[in-house]
């Protein structure tokens, strides 16, 4: 049998529909390559039995003519999503042994449509990180490695980005056909850029947050990490839904996103924000961006220079708002009800011991920052001011969208970096999100598309930011950009049996 793990989601869907192969055959192939790829550490849990059972059911759906775009498609699920009776720990020690008695709305939607769960993927602890090095389960290795000047592959490991690093590595290494991710400040888009994939964050409110382990509630959104824009469109449609159990979920019809991929963007207005041209930006990123502009122009789009004047405040604003919410969201992990408990002297002793042992350094840092910015006497200067700036950032975008349909920017200021390269410097790490956080703060949909390779042959991504709830225009533009870029590179396999 041919290697089914090289197919895209859309190709697999069509193959399943035509009866070229079954979901069980497809799933079994994935289970084999997953075993071979374990040193990547992209999966925390492989749900082999569940996968086979779901594949069997999916084949039944296909036979009965009840198939949807996701039926029979083997996917990986970020450990942030609660999956019933299956390990759901957000890669944190403090949730040791936690198996929820409920299924997140997003994954329930996917299973309803017949998708097949291969396992739970590694991530930065509680989605806090941009390199997947903060996981309690160890760092994830990027399937991509830099190519040295002599043409040989670097023997050192590279980070896959974060926080959805396990999901990105699994898809890039062909250990899953697609994966769910979650994006708070760039946690889908940046790892997608680092691994040569498509990563999409929909408009805030498009996907239900019910059953997603919360990091920063006003920013968290689920989205797909896939090989192509078409795959993202198919998977997004399944994940998105209005959910009465999430008060911030928005009651709007979910369109057929795949229909939006017409290949025609003639007359579409693409905004180029001057503030994203930052000091010290690597030349190759700037060049890639220019190439992206040229491709869009060549496809008949109109390029319009725009200004998003408050962009430079986005990163500091994000690093006040997100930790503030996180400091409160993570208060429930106290050793009383579930997960880790380390006994101590009385209640406060138990709290201290449990939280000291259960949270990693980055999570502690953000809890401390968040607690500080909400404290009496500091609230106005930090949290309140950050909320005001957040409003201004959203207004920047609203104004821009009076003139343009989508905005084109780089996804990240650099390609994937060597493991350990930035882990001692939180500020350098936070700068990874500089292009992704503004859309998060404004709640806008955004997508990263693989657009080229760096000088040392690592993937680079371009980002498109859309209007609120207009994922369709954004996807149409992304589809055209994807084809113009023609990114076809694959990582050279260094793992498992070669």
């Amino acid at each position, binding site marked *: 049998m041919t290697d089914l793990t090289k197919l895209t989601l859309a190709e697999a869907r069509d193959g399943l529909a035509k009866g070229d192969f079954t979901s069980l055959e497809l799933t079994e192939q994935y289970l084999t390559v997953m075993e071979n790829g374990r040193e990547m550490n992209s999966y925390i849990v492989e749900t082999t039995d569940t996968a086979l059972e779901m594949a069997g059911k999916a084949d039944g759906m296909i036979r009965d003519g009840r198939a949807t775009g996701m039926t029979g498609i083997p996917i990986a699920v970020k450990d942030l999503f609660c999956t019933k009776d299956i390990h759901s720990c957000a890669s944190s020690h403090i*949730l040791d042994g936690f198996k*929820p008695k409920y299924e997140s709305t997003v994954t329930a939607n996917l299973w309803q449509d017949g998708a097949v769960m291969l396992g739970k993927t590694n991530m930065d602890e509680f989605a806090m990180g941009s390199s997947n090095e903060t996981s309690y389960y160890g760092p994830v290795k990027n399937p991509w490695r830099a190519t040295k000047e002599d043409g040989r592959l670097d023997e050192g490991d590279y980070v896959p980005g974060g926080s959805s690093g396990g999901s990105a590595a699994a898809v890039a290494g062909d250990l899953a056909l697609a994966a769910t991710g979650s994006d708070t400040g760039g946690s889908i888009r940046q790892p997608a850029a680092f691994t040569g994939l498509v990563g999409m964050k929909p408009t805030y409110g498009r996907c239900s*947050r019910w059953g997603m382990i919360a990091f920063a509630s*006003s920013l968290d959104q689920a989205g797909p990490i896939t090989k192509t824009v078409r795959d993202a469109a198919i998977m997004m449609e399944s994940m998105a839904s209005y959910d009465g159990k999430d*008060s911030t979920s928005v009651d709007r019809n979910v369109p057929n996103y795949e229909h939006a991929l017409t290949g025609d963007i003639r007359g579409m207005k693409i905004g180029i924000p001057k503030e994203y041209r930052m000091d010290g930006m690597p030349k190759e990123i700037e060049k890639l961006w220019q190439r992206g502009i040229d491709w869009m122009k060549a496809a008949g789009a109109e390029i319009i220079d725009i200004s998003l004047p408050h962009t430079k405040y986005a990163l500091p604003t994000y690093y006040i708002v997100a930790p*503030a*919410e996180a400091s409160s969201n993570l208060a429930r992990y106290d050793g009383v*009800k*579930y997960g880790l408990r380390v006994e101590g002297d009385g209640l406060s002793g138990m709290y201290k011991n449990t939280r000291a042992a259960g949270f990693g350094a980055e999570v502690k840092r953000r809890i401390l920052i968040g607690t500080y910015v909400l404290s009496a006497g500091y609230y106005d200067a930090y949290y309140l001011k950050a909320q005001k700036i957040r409003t201004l950032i959203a207004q920047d975008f609203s104004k821009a969208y009076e003139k343009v349909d989508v905005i084109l920017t780089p996804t990240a200021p650099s390609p994937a970096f060597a493991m350990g390269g930035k882990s001692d410097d939180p500020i350098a790490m936070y700068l990874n999100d500089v292009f992704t956080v503004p859309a998060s703060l404004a709640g806008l949909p955004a997508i990263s598309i693989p657009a080229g390779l760096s000088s040392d042959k690592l993937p680079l991504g371009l980002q498109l930011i859309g209007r609120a709830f207009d994922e369709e225009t954004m996807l149409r533009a992304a589809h055209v950009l994807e084809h113009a870029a023609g990114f076809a590179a694959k990582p050279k396999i260094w793992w498992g049996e070669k």
Partner: protein
Amino acid sequence: MEKHIPKYIPKYIQGATGEWEVVIGLEIHAQVASEAKLFSGSSTKFGAEPNTHVSFVCSAMPGMLPVINEECVRQAVRTGLAIGCKIYLRSVFDRKNYFYADLPQGYQISQFKDPIVGEGEIIVDLEDGSTKTIGVERLHLEQDAGKSMHDQHPTQTYIDLNRSGVALMEIVSKPDMRSAEEAGAFFRKIRTLVRYAGTCDGNMDQGSMRADVNVSVRRPGAELGIRSETKNVNSIRYMMQVIAFEARRQVDILEDGGEVLQETRQFDPASGTTSSLRSKEEAHDYRYFPDPDLLPLEFTQAFVDDLARGLPELPDAKRKRLINDLGVSEYNAAILVAEKDNADYFEKLIEALAHKTNKPKDELATQAANWVIGDLFGALKKTGKTISECPVSIQDATELLVLQIEGTISGRIAKDVFEIMLETGKNPERIVEEKGLKQLSDTGAIDVIIDEVIADNQDKLIQYRGGKDKLFGFFVGQVMKKSQGKANPQVVNQLLRPKLDG
């Protein structure tokens, strides 16, 4: 009818160095009467086995989200309307962050800067007949915490999350009260209003209502003093003890040249004293911020108007109506309206009486009110029952009063019949029938009795006819006695006079 209301006179505490004024503010926590909790579908039923009314949301499972229970919102608005407060069409839920074992989320969802209900004021009646207006600062919605049980295990604490997430209304007064009596009157008035509105059952013994009591003292008219806050006081009697104790404690400190500390205190019912729980320095920094899981709570004026139309007649209006339309005395009216169930009983009784006797209500009201307050409440008090457990149905009560009004039995016999009704549960007509208690109005029969009495008391008759008019009463008494109280006193009067006068 104009009535003289005594002027309000402030009451001061006499210290060794002069007079002191005590200043009191209350934060009343009233549990919202609702089937489900504020942000989850779990039941709010009291008295269930521990941890049986707990959802994934109220146990703060990862990824669980709050969704507002609209009925709780309606109840808060109804309460605000009943108290006469401003209703805000937009309010915000905030998180109040602190760690405790029975607070599963590590924060309480409350309303901090933008509550659902704003300012208002209520008028309370004081014992000397005067009234006082007391301001309400605000009312906001919040979640209750669970319960820590320290007595189940020698070294461990058990947690019951049944209460976790139950909706509370925190009603904050202005610091307008100046005595324990005023604070008690304010609390009772709020309890009366929430019971009328049907928004809280007001059962303090089940924890449905409790108060944090803020007390400070000052020289009359001076700036406000430093206050103490005594938490979770769960009866009106305790609340008044807290105020008395705190006022005295603070006066003693100040008169000894000391300073009152701003602190949180707790009440010990056994000793009737308060003790320090934590000082200002140890006070929690709650790090309030808007809950990002919830959108601002918004509704229209039409929604509020609709709820206002659905409210029942409130106690102040009802009292006015009882006095002005039915001629019930001020005193009786105040007693009747204090509990909605009492007022309802009275009004149903009046309705039934008017129907049965074809008399206007205002002719019947005084007698009915006297009976309800004197006889019925007296009997309930003796047996420790409330009106909702009343053993006398409206129908039986009506029958009893009709028997009296129509002259079938006398007032004295009516009291006996009522006793028998309470003992046996039988209806009054049957009791009168069985025991032969019907009033004797038959002139022939009464004539016979009168003749016998006169015959037996010839000496008294001579004295009467000799000018000792007062003996008339003696003869009436004898006739009544001989008739076992059944003779109709009016008929006796009519027949006796001519016979005695000869």
